[in-house]
């Protein structure tokens, strides 16, 4: 692996970092300052197009959309990060053990995963949120649990393939402990598809959060969330399209940024790519 500067030609890394850093700056800024108060309504000013006063226009209550997008960055990062973290950690752990140990461990773990997968994701999230109460943390945990099975499947197939490779036999032979073989030897070699799956589930999480918020179970109003804004804006799609553009483009760029960064990380981690 070379120094960070030598990766300056990696377009995925540069663009991905640029996008995510801008969102990060917006998020940090939004803790201290937004151009307008995000919750003050001004009905006389509703559904105004973009102008120098309101960069992204105003919504149906006359609130400044740019301010709400800024504040919504917090929700997006929080939900996405927590969901992906839960999904990747438990998915890799479960899938890795199922694949590497095999036998009844594999059967038990993967049948549980099948049961989770067979359940429509949003219904499961609804159920979990209904039981544990609405709110951003519970929503993220529910979405994280939904993300586990698909990541576990990818991890399992990688571990099954690699556990028969001679480098694993060789590690066994010199007395490396099974847990270390799994996570120090095999995991780095099967991480590429996992990283991509993680970045995809980041986008899925943000959209699912939007759906849950729409149903009143995710982020509670009046706190802004991009997904919620997207849902709210669809009623005014023909009359005020800019209302839709702001959250839509934000979600697109956020997912794109994560996708590019994860691709770049995957390339940098692979010693053969240089």
């Amino acid at each position, binding site marked *: 692996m070379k120094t960070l500067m030598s990766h300056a030609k990696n377009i995925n890394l540069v663009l991905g970092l640029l996008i995510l850093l801008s969102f990060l700056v917006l998020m940090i800024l939004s803790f201290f300052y937004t151009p307008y108060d995000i919750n003050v309504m001004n009905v006389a000013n509703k559904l105004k197009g973009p102008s120098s006063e309101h960069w992204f226009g105003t919504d149906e209550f006359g609130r400044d959309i740019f301010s709400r997008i800024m504040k919504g960055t917090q929700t997006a990062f929080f939900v996405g990060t927590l969901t992906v973290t839960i999904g990747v950690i438990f998915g890799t752990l479960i899938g890795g053990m199922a694949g590497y140990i095999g036998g009844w461990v594999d059967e038990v773990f993967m049948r549980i995963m099948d049961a989770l997968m067979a359940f429509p994701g949003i219904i499961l999230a609804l159920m979990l949120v209904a039981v544990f109460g609405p709110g951003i943390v519970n929503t993220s945990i529910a979405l994280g649990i939904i993300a586990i099975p698909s990541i576990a499947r990818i991890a399992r197939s990688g571990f099954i393939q690699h556990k028969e490779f001679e480098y694993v036999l060789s590690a066994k*032979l010199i007395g490396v402990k099974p847990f270390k073989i799994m996570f120090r030897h095999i995991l780095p070699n099967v991480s590429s598809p996992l990283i991509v799956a993680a970045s995809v589930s980041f986008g899925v999480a943000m959209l699912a959060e939007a759906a849950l918020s729409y149903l009143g179970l995710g982020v509670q109003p009046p706190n802004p969330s991009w997904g919620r804004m997207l849902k709210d804006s669809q009623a005014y799609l023909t009359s005020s399209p800019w209302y839709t553009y702001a959250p839509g483009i934000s979600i697109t760029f956020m997912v794109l940024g994560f996708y590019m960064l994860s691709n770049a990380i995957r390339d940098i981690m692979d010693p053969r790519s240089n």
Partner: protein
Amino acid sequence: MNENEKLLTINNLKKYFPIKGTPFKKKAGQVKAVDDVSFHIFKGETLGIVGESGSGKSTLGRTILRLTEPTDGEIIFEGTNLEKLPMSKLFDYRKHMQMIFQDPFASLNPRMRVGQLVGEPLAVQKILTKAERTEKVIDLMGKVGLPKEALTKFPHEFSGGQRQRIGIARALSMNPSFIIADEPVSALDVSVQSQVLNLMMDLQEEFNLTYLFISHDLSVVKHISDRVGVMYLGRIVEIGPKKAIYSNPLHPYTQALLSAIPVANFDSKKEKIQLKGEPPNPSNPPEGCAFHTRCPLAYERCKLERPGLAEQGDGQYVACHLYAGNANESIESSNDEKVLVLQN
């Protein structure tokens, strides 16, 4: 070097792989990859094991190290029975028994640097400090002919022969007395093969190693081995000193194998023995002698009775009814003529 000191004794080793059946018929059968194999290895020698692919050579090597659990039989290493040792104690013995793998591209973790790869066995044992470890790694790299600069490189930056040297250094870092080499040169170019073989022979002298050398290449085995065992369908059909096996093969299968070695001398009238058919399915080996379906000299007894290894003098053992003393005399005499024809 004491010629008569046995380092490893294998008694009636068996490894059967179950064939997974349908839900209605749980056990569909088994593949007898290693079927009742017995031999021993003396300290400091090289025992070559030859056989066609699917004859169970690699499984034999892996079963001896218990990388796959044996179905039955004994593995006695320096007086200790390994086949029943719990895993925790097995590691103490694996220090003395290492393996060099066939594919130098698959046997080195592509995400680890050479220094890590060679030093890993030392790190696992936790007997040296980090500085001592680095020193030992550099020393080992020198022994196998790799430059010091290789330490921080990744395996993919090396050629096949160099990678195999890394694999050898990795095996050596455990200070083993016994190394199983599973087709160590079959993935390499011919020009590199001899370099690696000679390195292995030099190291054998320096560290007083004992090798079990598995290969399908008869000329490679001839180059490195002191004794040679021939495997067919999970069984050893003939085993003995290299000279005896190569100059006076007794088993019809060995004779056929040796006759297939290409010779550069066009004047020599060496008749090639053509074996008919394919090797039988190891999940359903023939009754009696496993070779009788393809053996040009087979007779009635071969179909009924499985021959055991019997000494034919000078440490050469063969599992063939043709050489059994109590065989029917008329058949024996008629077959003797055929043997002479074959050995021509």
